[in-house]
C-alpha cells in the first residue's frame, strides 16, 4: 500500500460524487454521516491497494451504493465485491445459461424469419415447444400490404315459418369510450376470423352460435346466411380526399342449414 487510507481519502471523492450526481439531500445526509464507516469497511475488505485506485473506484460508483456498504457487515462487503467479480467469470453454470439463452434467441429469430426452406427445416424441432408454451409470436402488423376496402358482416336468420331477421356483428366504429375498447375483440373475431373463415371451421361454428342465439322453441331458426357489405377505399389524390363510400357491395360468405343438434 503506497499511501495509508484515511477518512479524508473517502470524504473528498464521495462528496465530489454526490455533487456531480445531483444526489438528493436525504442521500447526502445518509452518506455523509457514514463516511468514516465506509472507509473502515472498504479498508477491511482489502479491496484497494492505494488511495488512487480507491478514489477512482468511488468516483464511478452510484452514490446510492454507499449506504449499502454501511448497512452491510464487513464480511458482506467482501462477499459482494467478490460476487460482482465472479458474475463475469466463466463457469459451467454460465456456459449452460449462455447456451440456453443463445438457443432461445435463435429459435425466436427462426420463428420471425419469413418462410424459407432452410428456416422451415431448422424450426421444425422447436416449433411444437414454442407453440405449446405460448411463446409463438408474429409482429408483421399492417404489413406487407394494407387492405383497400372497408366492410362489415351481418347474418340473415331464416325461421321455420318463413320469417327472417337480420343480425349485425358488433362494430367498434359505432361505439365510443370503454365500449369501443371492448369492441376490438369483436372486430378481431368478425372482421378477421369469420370473414377469412380461419381453418375453414369458423364460419360453421359462427352459424351454429347464431342459431343458438336466435333459438325459439315455437319457431326455431332453420337457415343462417352470413354476408358481408363492403366498399373500396378511394385511391389517394392530391387536394381534398373523397369521403368514404357506404358499404354497398354485398358478398355472401356462407349458407348454413341448421341441424337439430345445433340448438342444444
Amino acid at each position, binding site marked *: 500500500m503506497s499511501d495509508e487510507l484515511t477518512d479524508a481519502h473517502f470524504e473528498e471523492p464521495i462528496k465530489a460524487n454526490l455533487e456531480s450526481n*445531483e444526489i*438528493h*439531500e*436525504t442521500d*447526502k*445526509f445518509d452518506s*455523509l*454521516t*457514514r463516511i*468514516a464507516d465506509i472507509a473502515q469497511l472498504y479498508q477491511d475488505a482489502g479491496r484497494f491497494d492505494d488511495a488512487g485506485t480507491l478514489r477512482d473506484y468511488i468516483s464511478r460508483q*452510484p452514490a*446510492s451504493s454507499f449506504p449499502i456498504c454501511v*448497512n452491510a457487515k464487513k464480511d458482506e462487503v467482501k462477499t*459482494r465485491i467478490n460476487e*460482482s467479480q465472479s*458474475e*463475469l467469470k*466463466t463457469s459451467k453454470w454460465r456456459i449452460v445459461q*449462455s447456451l440456453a439463452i443463445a438457443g*432461445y434467441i435463435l429459435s*425466436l429469430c427462426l420463428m420471425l424469419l419469413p418462410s424459407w426452406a432452410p428456416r422451415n427445416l431448422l424450426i421444425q424441432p422447436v*416449433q*411444437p415447444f414454442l*407453440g*405449446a*408454451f*405460448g411463446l*409463438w409470436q*408474429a409482429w*408483421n*402488423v*399492417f*404489413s*406487407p*400490404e394494407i*387492405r383497400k376496402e*372497408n366492410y362489415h358482416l351481418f347474418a340473415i336468420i331464416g325461421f321455420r315459418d318463413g320469417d327472417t331477421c337480420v343480425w349485425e356483428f358488433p*362494430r*367498434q*366504429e359505432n361505439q365510443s369510450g*370503454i365500449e*369501443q*375498447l371492448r369492441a*376490438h*375483440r369483436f*372486430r*378481431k*373475431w368478425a*372482421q378477421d*376470423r369469420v370473414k377469412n373463415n380461419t381453418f375453414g*371451421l369458423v364460419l360453421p*361454428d*359462427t352459424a*351454429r*352460435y347464431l342459431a*343458438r342465439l336466435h333459438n325459439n322453441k315455437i319457431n326455431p331458426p332453420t337457415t343462417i346466411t352470413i354476408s358481408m357489405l363492403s366498399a373500396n377505399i378511394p385511391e*389517394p*389524390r*392530391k387536394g381534398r*380526399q373523397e369521403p368514404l363510400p357506404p358499404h354497398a357491395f354485398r358478398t355472401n360468405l356462407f349458407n348454413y342449414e341448421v341441424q337439430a343438434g345445433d340448438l342444444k
Partner: protein
Amino acid sequence: MSLLTLWRGWLKFWFEPASPMPMALYRIVYGLIVLWFGFLLCPDLLFWFGPASPVSNPVSREWPSEILLDPLILFPQTDTTIMAAFAILMISAFSLTIGLFSRASAFLLFLGLVSFHHHNWLILNSGDTIMRISALYLAVSNCGDALSVDRLIKTYVKGGKEPRTPQPKAPWAQRLMQIQLTLLYCQAFFSKLAGEMWVNGTALYYTTRLEDFRRFYFAPIADNVEILKYLTWATLAVELSLFTLIWLKDLRYIVIALGLLLHISIDLTMNLPIFQWLMMAAFIPFVYPEDLEKWANQVRRFFDRILGPPRLLIYESEAEGGAENKNAVKAELHAHIDIFKRTAIVNASLPAARESWRELLAGHTKPTEISTYGSSLLPPGAG
C-alpha cells in the same frame, strides 16, 4: 477481435450485475396494464371463454402444433371454472404489481394468460402476445428486488439488515426483454418493406381509412396525402431505429422518445387497446438505472420544494434490552417504503453518526420534524 474478447463481451452483456430498478418499474407499469386489460375483458369473459362462446372449444383447439398448454381444459367446462381462473389471473396481476411473491405471481400470470389465450386464440391481437411473453420474462427476472412488498418482507425477516439500495444482479432477463423488443421491431420493419404501400408512402392513407380500426380522425393530417406520405416513411424510420440506434447510449432516449410518439399517435388514431401501452411500457427496461436514480432525485427535490425539507428519523440499533432489533426493523421498513426520501434516517448507534448528528441536525438538512425509534435518542436541543 479474438473469441475470448467476444466471450467476455457476451458475459458482460448478459451477466454483469445491474440494478433491478428498470425491471421493477416495468413490473409495476406492466401489472397496471394487465389489470386494465382484465377490467376491459371482464364484461365479455364468459362470452369469449365460457362454454356457450361463439368460438367453440374444438375450433379454438385447432392449431398447427398438436400440444397446447391449457390447464383450463383439465377442469369442468363451466362458467364457474372460467370465472375462478380469471379471478386467479387478476389476483396474480395485482400481486405482481405490488411486488408480492413477484416471480411466482409473474409465473402464475404467464400460465393463466397462456391458458386463456390457448382457450380462444381467435380473438387475440399482438397486444395479447406481448403481454403473455413479457410475463415470462418478468417471472425469470429480479423484478421483485426493488419497489416491492417482497423487499419489505425480506427486510422484516432479516431484522432490518436488508440493504436500502437493491443489490445489483445479473440482468439476463432484462436483456432478453430488450432483445425481444429488438426482434419485434426488426420483423415489423422488414415485413413492411416487403410491401408496396409502405415504400410508396400510401400505407398511412389506407390505415387511417380503415373504419373498423378508427378512433379519432384528425382531418388536417389524415386528409393531407403529402403529410401522410412523410409520416409513413417516418414510421419506417422510427421502427428501424428501434432495433438499431436504440443500442447506442447517446441516442437511446431520443429513439425511445420517437417510439413513444409513434405509439401515442397510433393509440389516438386506432382502436388497438392495450397493445400500444404495453409497447410503450416495454421501453422501460431500456432505461439506464443511473438515469432512473437521477430522475427520481429530481422528483424528490420537487417534493422537497412543495412539502419542505425531509424530516429526520433517528433510531438506535444496538440499544440494551430487546427493543434494538425492532427499532432497526421499523426504521429500515420506513426507509424502504419512503421511496421519495421524505425522511433522513440515522442509525445513532454508528460511531460516525453519533459524533456528527448534532452538526447535521443544526445545519445540513434542517429537518422540520424529528422522530425517534428508541427511548433516549433525542439530542440536546433537538426536541
